[in-house]
C-alpha cells in the first residue's frame, strides 16, 4: 500500500523523525488560509500515488498568499498520469540555500534478504536515475531485520556517504527511519530530499512510504488511508476479488492465468505473437468456475482489451471448471470479446464438450499456449485495425 507524502511523514513523525510539517487542503481557499496562517512562502504539493509529480507540475513554490491560491487552482483537479489530484499538502518553504539536500532510503532487498539502507550526498534527484547514472555515489548497507539499524552503523553510513552536519543527529534520524520501516512493514521508505540546515540538523522535506500488503493485517489503524479513488478502478475491483492485477499501458490483449510465473510468461508469449498485453492478472490457485467468471468480467471491462488470453496450468485445476466460468460470463452477456484459452489440467474432454454445447465463436480452446496467444493476438490486432479503420472513415 502506497502512502501519500503527508501520510508517510505522519508515520515518520510517530517514530521521532523531524519532518517538514504541513497541512492538507482540498480547495484553493483552504490553501490560501494555510498560507496566510504560515505567514511565509509555502510549497503546494499534489498528493497522488504516482511518481514524477514534480516534473508534471504538481509541486509549486509559492512566495505569496496569492501565488499559493493560484498554484492550488492549477494543481487541484489536474491530471497526473491518469490520476486526478484531489488534495494538496501545503508546507512551509525551506530556504534550500541555507543547507544541503541529501538522500536516505530503505528498501526490501532480496539480494541481502533484508532491508538495504541507501544514502547519497546527492539529494533531490530520483534515486532510480542516480542508481542508473552514478551507482557509486550511493552508499548501501544491509540492515539487520532483528536488531534494526544501530546508531554506530548509521554514523558509518553517513560518514561514507559524505554527509556534513551533526553526525549524531543525522544517525539518530536514520535509526528512527529504520525503526519506522521495520515496525510499519515498509517495502520502501525514502526521505528525499533530506535537508540538513546550517546547524547540521536534519529535516525530512519529502518522503515516499510504501507498506507491505501482506502485513496490513497488523496495521489496521492505517486501513482508512487506503484510497480507492486514487487507484485505477480495475485495480480496486481486482483487490476485492483477491487477484493480483496490474494494468499495462498500450495493450490490447487481456491476459489471465493461475500463478505469477505463468502470467508473466503469458505476457511474453503475447508479445512474441505481435500483440501487447493490456494487463497482468493472476487468479491464484484452485481456479473454480466463479473465480474464472470474476476474472473474465474484470478484464472485459477494460476498454483497451480487444481479446482475452487465458492460460491455465494445473494438475489439480479442472479444465471444465474454467470453461464453466467463461461460459457463464458469455451467457450473462458480460463477455463480448473473443476468449482464446489453453487449459492444461484434468477433465479437458469435459471442457471441450461444454464448449461444443454453447458453440460460440467467442470462446476457443487451443492445445498449447502459443496457439492460444497467437489467436488472441490476431483477434486483438484485427479489432484494432477495424477501429482504426472506422475512425479514419
Amino acid at each position, binding site marked *: 500500500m502506497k502512502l501519500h507524502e503527508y501520510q508517510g511523514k505522519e508515520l515518520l513523525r510517530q517514530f521521532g523523525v523531524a519532518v517538514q510539517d504541513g497541512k492538507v487542503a482540498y480547495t484553493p481557499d483552504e490553501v490560501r488560509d494555510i498560507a496566510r496562517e504560515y505567514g511565509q512562502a509555502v510549497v503546494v504539493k499534489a498528493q497522488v500515488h504516482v511518481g514524477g509529480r514534480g516534473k508534471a507540475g504538481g509541486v509549486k513554490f509559492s512566495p505569496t498568499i496569492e501565488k499559493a491560491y493560484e498554484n492550488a487552482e492549477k494543481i487541484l483537479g489536474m491530471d497526473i498520469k491518469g490520476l486526478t489530484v484531489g488534495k494538496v499538502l501545503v508546507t512551509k518553504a525551506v530556504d534550500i540555500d541555507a543547507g544541503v539536500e541529501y538522500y536516505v532510503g530503505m528498501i526490501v532487498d532480496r539480494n541481502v534478504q533484508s532491508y538495504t539502507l541507501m544514502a547519497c550526498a546527492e539529494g533531490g534527484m530520483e534515486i532510480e536515475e542516480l542508481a*542508473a547514472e552514478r551507482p557509486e555515489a550511493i552508499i548501501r548497507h544491509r540492515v539487520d531485520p532483528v536488531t534494526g539499524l544501530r546508531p554506530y552503523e548509521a554514523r558509518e553510513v553517513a560518514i561514507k556517504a559524505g554527509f556534513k552536519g551533526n553526525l549524531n543527529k543525522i544517525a539518530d534520524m536514520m535509526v528512527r527511519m529504520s525503526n519506522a520501516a521495520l515496525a510499519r512493514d515498509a517495502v520502501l521508505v525514502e526521505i528525499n530530499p533530506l535537508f540538513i540546515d546550517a546547524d547540521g540538523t536534519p529535516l525530512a522535506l519529502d518522503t515516499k512510504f510504501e507498506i507491505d500488503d*501482506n502485513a496490513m493485517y497488523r496495521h489496521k489503524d492505517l486501513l482508512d488511508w487506503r484510497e480507492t479513488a486514487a487507484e485505477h478502478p480495475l485495480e480496486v475491483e481486482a483487490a476485492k476479488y483477491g487477484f*493480483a492485477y496490474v494494468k499495462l499501458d498500450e495493450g490490447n490483449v487481456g491476459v489471465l492465468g*493461475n500463478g*505469477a510465473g505463468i502470467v*508473466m510468461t503469458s505476457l*511474453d508469449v*503475447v508479445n512474441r505473437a505481435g500483440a501487447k498485453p493490456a494487463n*497482468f492478472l493472476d487468479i491464484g490457485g484452485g481456479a473454480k468456475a466463479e473465480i474464472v467468471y470474476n476474472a473474465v468480467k474484470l478484464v472485459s471491462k477494460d476498454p483497451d482489451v480487444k481479446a482475452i488470453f487465458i492460460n491455465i*496450468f494445473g494438475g489439480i485445476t479442472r479444465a471444465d471448471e474454467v470453461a464453466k466460468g467463461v461460459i457463464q460470463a458469455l451467457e450473462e452477456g458480460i463477455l463480448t470479446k473473443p476468449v482464446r484459452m489453453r487449459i492444461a489440467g484434468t477433465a479437458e474432454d469435459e471442457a471441450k464438450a461444454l464448449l461444443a454445447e454453447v458453440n460460440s465463436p467467442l470462446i476457443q480452446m487451443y492445445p498449447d499456449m502459443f496457439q492460444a496467444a497467437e489467436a488472441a493476438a490476431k483477434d486483438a490486432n484485427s479489432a484494432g485495425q477495424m477501429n482504426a479503420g472506422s475512425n479514419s472513415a
Partner: protein
Amino acid sequence: MSILVNVNSKVVVQGITGREGGNHARAMKAFGTQVVAGVTPGKGGQDFEGTPVYNSVAEAVEKQGANVSIIFVPPAGAADAVLEAAHASVPLIVLITEGVPTVDMMKAVQEVKGLNERNLQGGGAGIRLIGGNCPGLVSSGEAKVGIMPNSIYADKGRIGLISRSGTLTYEAGKLLQLAGLGTSTTVGIGGDPVIGTTFADVLPLFEADPDTDAIVVIGEIGGADEEAAAEYIAAHMNKPVVAFISGRSAPAGKRMGHAGAIIMGNVGTPESKLAAFAAAGVPVADTMPEIVELVRKALNK
C-alpha cells in the same frame, strides 16, 4: 537417488488440521511420502486420517523421528512455525504459505541461517528452509513434500529442476515428462522477495547428485538470484544447465504478482539475466518447450 527428499524422509505437516494442510497431507501420502506426524497447537493427541497430531514440532520429532517439515500455517503464524521447526533442529523446512509479511521472513531466514551454521559447527546436518510462497519439492517416484500435482512426478528422470515460479514448475516438469526425460528432483524455491534457499544454494546439490545429468533453472525478472546462479555455474558446475526467464516483456517498476518480480532501476532486468547466463555459457530457452530442446542438446554434447 535424489536430493533433499527421498523414500526415507519422514515428514511432519505443520497445520495438518487446516484445509490446505489436510488436503496436501493426503496428496503427499497418495504420492508415497512418509507423512509421520502433524502439528496443530491445542490439538495434540488427535489424529489426522491415521497420522498422529502433536502440539509441537519438538514432540513430532521426538515421537516420530520427523526430519522434514512442511508448513501450511496461515501467514500471521508462518514465520513462527518456521522458527519452531528450526529450533527443533528439523534439517529441512518447507514453507508453502503465501502472503507472509516480508519482515517476518527476513527475521526467520536470518535466524535459520544462524541456527544452520551453529548446527553444522556442532556436527549436525544443518537446517535448511525452502520458500515461503513456494510449491515445495519432490523427488520423482520417491517422495513429495509440496503441493505439485502428483501425476507429473510419478516416474524418476534425470533432470534436476529449480524454479522461482509455482505453475511454471509444473509446466516444465510436464514438458520434461512428455519428452521422456523426466525429473530427478524438483525444487520450487518460491517467488517472494525473501526466501530461505536460492538457485545458488541448490545447484551444488544437483552437481553432486549421481542421478542428475542436467539442471533446468526457471527464473524470472527481479532481483539478482539468476545472476548469482550464473556466477556459481560458471565457477563450479560441470553438469549442463539450461535456463528460462519469465516476465521478459514486463515493464520496469511494475510489481508482477509477487514482490520479487519487479525491475527496479538496473536491477532485475531480463537483459542483465540474459547477459549473465550467456557469460556462464548457459543456454536460455525463449519458450517453455524450447527448454526440452536445449536440455536434449546439452545432454548430447
